[in-house]
């Protein structure tokens, strides 16, 4: 066993939680599909192809946002748990508590939206939950926020267990982040494997995000129940976007662990923790926490330095990301005889989508651009790139890997290629996804506003094309999820 890949425990050592992770991915896949259908309904409604009452549209938009962010977090956490379990023993009960609290939160959120009528978007931005104009009562908002609290508590437990074990094993937070290698005399042979570094970094910032999120959630709940406790709107927005930004980023950074752990099987060589890698992840840790003001560039009362910091950090945040993962992946891919299958293809697509998505994100993070673009469909355009073609692709890749065929049959390097059906499904996912996000970006460039339930006919073309592309993505995703389910069911017999 080489020290660079870390001490891999035998599969049996983390076996007890493999079932839980597989169940999570099944739930995640089904919810992803459902939320994609919600997305398709919204685009079709905007394109004038179907009639959706605007009140229902915003309920669907809220469910789509909360559902997608939550499921991205859920699948990311499942990946984090699964691969952290290869390096340190983890307490199975914590994962079940996490899953239980998550499902409880989902029930609260769905009830708040579709029974209580809550439609204040996943960002619960103050004062919208309190001032619904009579569309929903404070009870629905409180239930929605309590759902978030439940999910947050689950994530907190999960991250605490992961951090605790990694700290004990690798020598504190610094040891698990490979600081001796990054900033000291440590040797690469002694550094923890990439999955450990990524697991520790994402757990650290997600824990901070959740603690801040819990405070603003409770403050919002108090405000809803006793309106006399006015919330400072700007402070609340800062806290909400810190929490939201960190949470959605954490979902991607957790999912990347699947790339570090799975792709070496296909590349035939381990993914190494280098000094650059270690430095980059520490920088990512700081940047994820510091970059959130780029969501508040239109808030005039924000202090200038905070906005400047948001723009500057957002310029540079692409660099460590691309350096640590995308660039290394390209180097590895060029040097290796890659044995492609669905899992490998989707994971590489995930890295590509994540990297490409950062480009329009950095553009939107520039103050001059932001003033014009931030309320257009440019914004859903950029985040759908690194979610649909990034995080979700990685999650689907992980699912495909969980039900992969043994590689032994295709042992000859370079022999395996994507088979006919796989090839078609993968291409449909890529083409549908690319076309879908392109329609958002084109609409954004044409100043089509985002979050409008009703569009004018001039905007119908992109909306209708996007609906078509969405149908392609859903078709491909359906096959991926169905095949995952079928293989799991067959193996369970």
């Amino acid at each position, binding site marked *: 066993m080489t*020290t660079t890949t*870390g*001490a891999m*425990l035998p599969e049996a050592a983390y076996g007890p939680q493999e079932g839980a992770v597989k169940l999570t991915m099944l739930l995640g896949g089904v919810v992803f599909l459902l939320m994609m259908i919600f997305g398709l309904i919204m685009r079709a409604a905007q394109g004038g192809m179907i009639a959706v009452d605007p009140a229902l549209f915003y309920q669907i938009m809220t469910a789509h946002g909360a559902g997608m962010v939550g499921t991205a977090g859920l699948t990311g956490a499942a990946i984090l748990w699964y691969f952290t379990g290869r390096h340190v023993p983890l*307490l199975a009960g*914590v994962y079940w508590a996490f899953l239980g609290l998550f499902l409880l939160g989902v029930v609260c959120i769905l009830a708040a939206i579709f029974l209580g009528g809550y439609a204040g978007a996943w960002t619960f931005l103050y004062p919208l939950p309190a001032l619904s104009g009579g569309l929903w009562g404070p009870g629905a908002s409180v239930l929605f926020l309590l759902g978030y609290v439940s999910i947050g508590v689950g994530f*907190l*437990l999960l991250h*605490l*267990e992961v*951090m*605790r074990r990694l*700290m*004990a*094993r*690798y*020598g*504190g*937070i*610094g*040891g698990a982040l490979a*600081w*001796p290698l990054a900033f000291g005399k440590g040797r690469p042979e*002694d550094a923890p494997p990439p999955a450990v570094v990524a697991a520790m970094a994402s757990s650290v910032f997600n*824990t901070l995000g*959740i*603690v*801040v999120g*819990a*405070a603003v959630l*409770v*403050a919002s709940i*108090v405000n809803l129940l006793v309106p*006399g*406790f*006015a*919330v*400072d709107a700007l402070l609340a927005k800062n806290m909400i976007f810190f929490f939201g930004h960190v949470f959605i980023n954490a979902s991607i950074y957790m999912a990347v662990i699947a790339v570090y752990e799975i792709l070496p099987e296909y590349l035939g060589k381990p993914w190494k923790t280098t000094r650059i890698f270690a430095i980059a992840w520490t920088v990512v840790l700081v940047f994820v926490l510091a970059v959130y003001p780029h969501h508040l560039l239109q808030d005039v009362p924000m202090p200038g330095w905070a906005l400047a910091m948001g723009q500057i950090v957002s310029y540079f945040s692409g660099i460590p990301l691309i350096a640590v993962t995308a660039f290394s992946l390209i180097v590895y891919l060029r040097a290796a005889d890659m044995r492609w299958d669905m899992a490998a293809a989707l994971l590489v697509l995930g890295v590509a989508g994540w990297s490409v998505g950062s480009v329009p994100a950095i553009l939107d993070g520039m103050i001059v651009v932001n003033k014009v673009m931030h309320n257009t469909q440019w914004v859903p355009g950029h985040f759908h790139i690194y979610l649909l073609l990034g995080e979700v692709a990685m999650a689907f890749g992980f699912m495909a890997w969980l039900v992969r065929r043994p590689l032994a049959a295709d042992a000859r390097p370079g022999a395996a290629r994507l088979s006919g059906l796989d090839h078609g499904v993968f291409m449909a996912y890529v083409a549908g996804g690319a076309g879908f996000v392109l329609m958002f970006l084109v609409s954004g460039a044409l100043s089509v506003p985002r979050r409008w339930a009703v569009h004018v006919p001039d905007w119908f073309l992109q909306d209708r094309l996007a609906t078509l592309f969405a149908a392609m993505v859903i078709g491909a995703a359906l096959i991926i999820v169905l095949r995952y389910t079928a293989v799991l069911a067959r193996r369970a017999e």
Partner: protein
Amino acid sequence: MTLPRLSLAAALIAAAWVFRAPLEADPVTHILVQLPLLALAGALLPGARGTGGAWNRGGWAMILTAIFAMAFWMLPRSIDAAVSDPAVAASKFLSLPLLVGLPLRLGWPRAHPLLRGFLKAQALAMLGVLAFLYTHAPVRLCNAYLAEDQVRLGTGFLATALALAVLWVAPLLGAQGAAAPARRHRSVS
């Protein structure tokens, strides 16, 4: 061994009693200095033998005792009564050492590390919520204190949260000590 700790605890309680007028004149020193002093005194008390029994497995019973006692002293009306009612004042000087400090000391070392981490995160979030409540309340929460003091107390809660966050996170960063055994362990496995 026990005598110095006992005298230190007694000294802390005596100090909290002797200086109670100036300490209780300002809610910031009342809540954030006097009450923690009393709890600290309780934590220094020599623990009774037998607290390691089965009933305190995992430290749950003791930690829950401390949580409920703290919840009682988080009620604004308890603080008001502690200033105006001698009986409640006396119960403050008894309950904070015996029902907060001592149980925490008896329960905390036996608590699962995950529970400890969760409680720390919970404490930080709760202090943040208290900071919000006390800086934004539309009315005076304590009749014994001015509205402006209430806002200062809210700011004090925030400062406490930040200080605790630094205090709890800083030791985790250091790789020294734990790093060497970790390496050895890894090469063996």
